[in-house]
Structures are given as C-alpha cells and as structure tokens.
C-alpha cells in the first residue's frame, strides 16, 4: 500500500518528464533559445535596475536653468567623458556615456536600464489582467453557450469595431494622465481578443470525447470547465500572452510617446524616445537606442511565444 506522499511524487515525476520533453523541443530551436536568453537577461536587469544604475547619472540635478531641454547639450559618448556640471564630481578616472546623454543631460544607458522595470512591470500587469479577464469570460461564454455567449460576443464585437488606439487615448485623456489610467486604457482594448481566442478553444475542446466521457462519468460543469477544458485550452493563450508582452510594451510606450505621459522625466522607453524625437537630427542616438531597446525586448518575447506555439502543439505529442 502506498502513502499519500508517494502518490504525489509519482504524479510529480510524470509531469516533470513531460516538461523535460517540452524543454527538449524548446532547445532544439536556436531562435527560441536566443529569445529566451534575451528576455531573461532583460528581466534580470530590470529586477536589479536600481542596484546597477548610479543614481547620479540619472538625475536631472546637474541640469541648471533654462527651459527644458535644449539648454543642456545632448552628448555622444565617444568624445565626452562624464563631466557633470560644475558642482558634481563623479568617480575617479574617466567614465563615458556609453550611449550618450538624453535631453535632460542624463546618461541614456542608465535611463534605459531604469526604464526596463517600468515598462516590463506595466506590460506584465496589463497582459495578466487582460488575459485573465478575457479568458475567463471567453471560457464561460464558450462553455455555457446560449444567450450569455451571444451577449459576450456582441460586446466583443463592439470592442473590435473600435479604433483601439483612439479608445485608449480618449480614455487616457479623459481620466487624467497617470500610469494607472494608461494601464486601464490598454487593458480596455486588449481583453477582447482573449475572449475570442479562449471561446474558440473551449468550443473546440468541449466537443472532444474526453469531455463527453467526463460528463458521462458524472463530473459537474465547473469541474469539467476549470479542471479539464481550460487546462487543455490554455496553451494558445499562454502563447498569445507571451507575444502580447511585446505588443503591450510597444503600445504603452506609444501612448507615452504621443504625450500621455504623466511626467516627461519619467524613465520610460516611450518617454525617452519622445525626448529623442525633439532632437532627432542633432542627437539621433537617443531615439535610436531607446527604440532599439523596445525592439529587442519585444522581439525576444515574440521569439519565445513563437517557440512556445511549436512546443505546445499537441500534434507533436501524440
């Protein structure tokens, strides 16, 4: 006779073997591995951002007088060792602004590093909330069918017919410029696709014989939906969510860029890019590097998502 703990270990090992196989599939694809490594790198940097960056490089304190930001020169690293205003002495020995400085005279590299946690955190929050909202609603609609399904579908129809960015912008401009408003505005336009995706998944999943078998076994609707159907249907959602992380970072920063930023000096990639836009011809590096960072993060998430799609493809597992 077995003990409970042994039961659990058996289960656990079986699932581990399954995951190992997925990791194997994952590792076979060089693009996906690159994406994974890059996104992990960015996440780690974001987590440690406040420890990495010298706060003195990221303040506007050195900037004295004049109207923002053209008084202080944008500087390009190669020829400009850090000379920080008349009253600030930095470390011993020469240091460089590796990516130049921004319009506030701050070190661009430091600003980008500081922007990472802001952007990543917002992207995670937005995607998680939108995905949770959308999948739950979609799953319920798909499983229940009937009038509820029809109602949910019509509501998403309306949201799909909206110009997404306009809705977000109107929302953001009406409720004031704060990070929370922006998050809410993006969630508002980002949840309907999850409803459709999950609903479609659940619809196809609930036709499968195993669902019928569960019903014949006497399993209740909640058990069937949440313990079986959703677990089987969730994988495309994971893929979508991973890829959306990139998309949301782009949208979030686009809103910031379009002037919905709560503060111009907030370290955020869209903000930095907007700043760079003001001096696009004289100091192109600012917009170049801030945009490039967005590109790389977004690409990395997309690569991971793309690979996840292949790995989680049930056809590979038969």
């Amino acid at each position, binding site marked *: 006779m077995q003990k409970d703990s042994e039961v659990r270990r058996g289960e656990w090992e079986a699932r581990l073997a399954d995951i190992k196989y997925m990791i194997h599939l994952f590792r076979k694809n060089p693009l996906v591995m690159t994406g994974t490594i890059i996104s992990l790198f960015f996440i780690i940097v974001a987590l440690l951002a406040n420890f990495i960056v010298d706060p003195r490089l990221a303040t506007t304190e050195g900037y004295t007088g004049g109207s923002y930001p053209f008084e202080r020169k944008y500087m390009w690293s190669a020829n400009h060792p850090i000379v920080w205003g008349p009253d600030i002495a930095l470390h011993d020995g020469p240091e460089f602004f590796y990516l130049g400085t921004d319009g506030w005279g701050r070190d661009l590299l430091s600003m980008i590093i500081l922007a990472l946690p802001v952007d990543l955190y917002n992207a995670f929050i937005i995607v998680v909330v939108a995905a949770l909202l959308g999948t739950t609603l979609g799953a319920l609609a798909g499983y229940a069918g009937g009038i509820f399904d029809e109602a949910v579908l019509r509501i998403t129809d*309306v949201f799909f*017919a909206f*110009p997404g960015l306009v809705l977000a912008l109107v929302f953001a*401009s009406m409720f004031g410029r704060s990070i929370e408003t922006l998050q809410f505005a993006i969630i508002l336009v980002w949840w309907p696709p999850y409803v459709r995706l999950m609903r479609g998944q659940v619809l196809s999943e609930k036709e499968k014989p195993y669902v019928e078998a569960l019903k014949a076994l006497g399993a209740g609707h909640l058990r069937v939906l949440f313990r079986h159907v959703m677990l089987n249907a969730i994988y495309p959602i994971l893929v979508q969510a991973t890829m959306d992380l990139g998309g949301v970072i782009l949208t979030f920063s686009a809103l910031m860029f379009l002037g919905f930023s709560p503060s111009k000096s907030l370290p955020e990639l*869209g903000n930095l890019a907007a700043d760079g836009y003001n001096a696009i011809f004289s100091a192109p590096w600012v917009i170049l590097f801030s*945009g490039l960072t967005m590109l790389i993060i*977004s690409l990395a*998430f997309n690569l991971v998502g793309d690979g996840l799609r292949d790995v989680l493809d049930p056809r590979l597992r038969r």
Partner: protein
Amino acid sequence: MKLYEYIIRRLILLVFVLLAVSVLIFYLTRGFERGFAPWAPYINEKMTAEQIEEVIKAHGFDRPLHEQYFYWFRDVFNGEWGLTGTWGLGLPANRVFFNRFPRTVELAVFATILTISIGIPLGIISAVKNNKLPDHISRIIALAGYSTPSYWFGFLLQLVFFYYFSLWGLPNLPSSGAPSIATRITGLPILDGLLTGNLGFVWNEFVHLILPSISLSFISLGFLARIVRASMLEVLRQDYITMARSKGLRERVVIYRHALKNALIPAVTLTGIFFASLLGGAMITEYVFSWPGVGQAALLAVGQGDSNFILLYSLVFATIIVLANLAVDVAYAFLDPRIKY
C-alpha cells in the same frame, strides 16, 4: 442560410454595434470635464453673451447628458455631424473628415499592396523551407516587423532617407507631408492627377507615399507572413498534399495549386482586417510623417477632446471594420466551396 440572408443579419448587427460605439464614445468625451467645451466651435469672439446663450440652448449643451446625445443624433441625421473645434474654426466635422479621407485611402492601398507582395512570399518560403536557413531569416524579418515601435521605425526612415541622404548629397525622399491637391474630381489625389494628366503631381504624391507605406507595411507584413507560414505548414501536413505528390505532380504545382489556395484562406481574413484598420487611419504613422489623413486628425482631435470629430471618426471606423469582416466572410465562401451560409 442564403448568402444574402447572412449579409442582412450582419448588417442588422452593424446598427447595434454603431449605437453602442456612439454611446460609449459620447459619454467618454462629453461626460468628463476635460478638453474644450463642446460649444466652443459654435461660438466666436464677436458673439454677445446672449448670442452664446442662444447657441448653447439651440444645440442642447445645457441639457443633461443623455438628452445631449439625442441632440447630437439630430445633427447626425441633418448630415452635419456637429462642428469641430480642433482646427481652430468651427468646421463641420464631416467636411474635415471626408477632405482627409482620400489621403488615408491612398496610404492604406499602397501599404496593403506592399504588405501582401512581401508578406505572402515570405510566409510561403518560410513554410516550404521549414526550419532551414531561409525559414529562420524570414521568421526573424517577420517577428522583427511587428516587434518594432512604429513611430520609431518611421523616424529611422526619415533620418536615413531624408536627413542623411540629403547630407550626403544623395537623392532623398520627402520625410513628411503631402503636396497640395490641384484639382478634385474623384477625391483620390493620385487618381485625379492621372485623370487631369498632371503627372508631376502624381509623381510628387507617390514619392511622399513611399516612406509612410514602407513604415506601415514593415510592421504588418510580419503578421501576414506568420499566418501564411502557419497555415501553409498546416496544409502541407494534410493528406491531400501526399495525394498530390503521389500523382507525380511537380512540387511547384503541389505548392501553388494544391496548398496555396487552402493556405490563403486565413491570410485573407488578416489582410481584410488590416486593410480596414488602415482605412481608419494609421494614426501614429500619419502623425510621424505628417500625412494629412484622418488618423492624424483623430489624434489631434483626441488631444483636444473634440467630441464631434471623434464620434464621427469612431463610427466610420466601426462601419469599415464590420463591413470588412463581412467582406472577408463572403470571400471565404468563394475561396472554400465547403462554406455555406
């Protein structure tokens, strides 16, 4: 269900969608004390306080919000759509919108053509050479496309093709704006230029379109290439492809006759929706390139809290999207004989 019955059904739904969109936008733009006052476009400095009072009364701006909605509704049925104040003067919203709309259509058409002609081949190559070098390259291009911040890419194009090219003395492309329209016949600038034989204008307009089109299509061709790749891979796994090969058909025939038609079905959806959303104006791109389309106008209007213009814009956009979805569904029925409505 017959096709026309299906279309009717969808059109009835469209009415409900439009109502919902208008109510939502109306309350969002009028319900909060932001932006300029809705009566601002209707008044000018010369008016006396009484006159202003009268205007406000006439347009119902003193009524509760839900009544204002019906005042707006009345304006819509009058064909006026209210006045917009974004451009300083009290211009009718629909005039501003439809003056700019042809420019947006032009950009949408160009960008869509570019997207299709690059995205689909890219997807096919990717699928046929699955997991080989060409696949990796085209996948990276595709993924990079939609991982790129659109405004950033636009600036990059401007920087290189306009600024640096002119610095280096190379023939450069215009970075922004569009030439002013000489004559209006159909409303579409390029078409009008061709009709009147004004080739100089046509060329000028075309040159101005290049950078925004590239910028737009680079972002979207990735989506298309991915869809084509995925569905092509799926189709190539099907039994009827084995059958086609077993008949001794050339690989070219297998791919283009047997696989492509099946694989293009999902791509049609994407292209349709993509085109429709471009018709609604690629806001950021139009803004970056100062392209005088409706997207740029909408962006400005949002900044001003210009309720009338945003309402008109959203409704047209919603209509376009719903109709595009409908068109896609109808196209399905032609592409796939199995689909019946």
